[in-house]
């Protein structure tokens, strides 16, 4: 099988497997909605206040939801041995990792994008800011999946890796949060957002190039 076909087959397989367990897919999404809905309850539901905290709240919620969804990336393949088979195939492991990460993003990142406008509505975010929020999520969520994959690959062999995973991954998410929430905040204030979005794009390009290599190295170590 050619590399391109193998890549496509792996992508399709992962998406299909995920779609057969819709319940698991919905959980991080519900978590995202609930976390964001808690903020107005914990604070003052004043529209002006909500609007000013909206970019940060939505993005922190997206960060945590993405992290909850991370664990499933390699878990079942690790448990049933499919991951070891992937290591044994003649195809380069970083590219296979990229296929798995892409599949993971399609089933966990894209849904976040779809519910984000609803959350924007809850927090009184309007107009151009919603568009920029979607743009920042479109650039930022694949980054979360790519960076997170390294952490998952390092902890996949551990029985209780969940909390450790957040400890490893959250500090690395800081730049994404800063640029993405900054872009939405700027859009609200009517300022230029190209700088932040360009940074997110640059980080995404860097992560696509480097993160699969680190993930592949980490998987080889975890499966040793």
């Amino acid at each position: 099988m050619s590399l391109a076909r193998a890549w496509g087959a792996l992508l399709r397989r992962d998406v299909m497997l995920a779609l057969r367990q819709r319940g698991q897919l919905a959980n991080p999404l519900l978590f995202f909605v609930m976390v964001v809905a808690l903020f107005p309850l914990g604070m003052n539901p004043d529209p002006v206040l909500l609007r000013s905290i909206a970019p940060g709240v939505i993005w922190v919620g997206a960060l945590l939801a993405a992290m909850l969804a991370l664990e499933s990336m390699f878990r079942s393949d690790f448990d049933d041995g499919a991951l070891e088979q992937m290591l044994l195939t003649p195809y380069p492991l970083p590219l296979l990792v990229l296929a798995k990460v892409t599949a993971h993003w399609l089933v966990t990142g894209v849904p976040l994008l779809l519910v984000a406008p609803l959350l924007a509505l809850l927090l009184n975010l309007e107009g151009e800011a919603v568009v920029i929020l979607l743009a920042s999520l479109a650039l930022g969520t694949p980054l979360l999946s790519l960076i997170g994959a390294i952490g998952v690959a390092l902890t996949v062999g551990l029985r209780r890796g969940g909390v450790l995973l957040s400890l490893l991954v959250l500090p690395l998410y800081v730049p994404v949060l800063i640029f993405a929430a900054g872009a939405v905040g700027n859009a609200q204030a009517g300022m230029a957002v190209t700088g932040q979005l360009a940074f997110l794009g640059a980080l995404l390009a860097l992560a696509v190039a480097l993160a699969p290599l680190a993930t592949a190295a980490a998987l080889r170590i975890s499966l040793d």
Partner: protein
Amino acid sequence: MWAWLHRLGSPKRFYGWSGALARWAGWGSLLLGVAGLYYALFASPPDYQQGESVRIMYVHVPAAWLSMFIYMNIAFASLISLVWRMKVADMFAAASAPIGAWFTFLALVTGSLWGKPMWGTWWIWDARLTSELILLFLYLGYIGLLSAIEERDTAARAAAVLALVGVVNIPIIHYSVEWWSTLHQGATVTKFEKPSIAWTMLRPLLLMALASTLFYIMVALRLARAELLRREADSTWVRELIDGHQGGGNR
């Protein structure tokens, strides 16, 4: 050259030379530290703006410098251990991590103690403070991963990958945080005019920085040596070493 380096890095050789180095670093750290503290506490003038609290800087600056220096060391040792599979580099990286985390913590605490009289608050979300805090998180993640994996060799290699990922991210985090803080607040409190530092103040600063670095080298080497003995407990050279010690004691 490479063969020579490899021989220096073999566990037995390393155990031989690191003991002497650790001892010298320890004495050097003590001497320079005493001299540095003398100059810092007695023989340097209070700052005309900061008063006596400038003396906190003589601990704070070396701690902050070491917090970054040690992370770089960990990353470098990790690279060596991943590429050349040098066990000793692993152990040095693992031994460095807790020391680095403590120095980062010390830098944060002393910075906060200094900030209270200077800025009137224990904590502000200044770019450097925030970067230092995230660096502490990176250290804690590294230590967490290292202690979570039972198999020592696997743990060391996994942590090495994490250290390299972290070192690629540090500049990105640093600049994003810097950019963020300049966006959020004017840099009025944090950036007072930095006068070119006077020799009487530079002297204790340099002495303290050297003393702390030597202290780090001593502790890291000692920890690495202890770990080395633990992991190589079954090898012949460790047995011979222990037999030699016991033989010497009986005589």
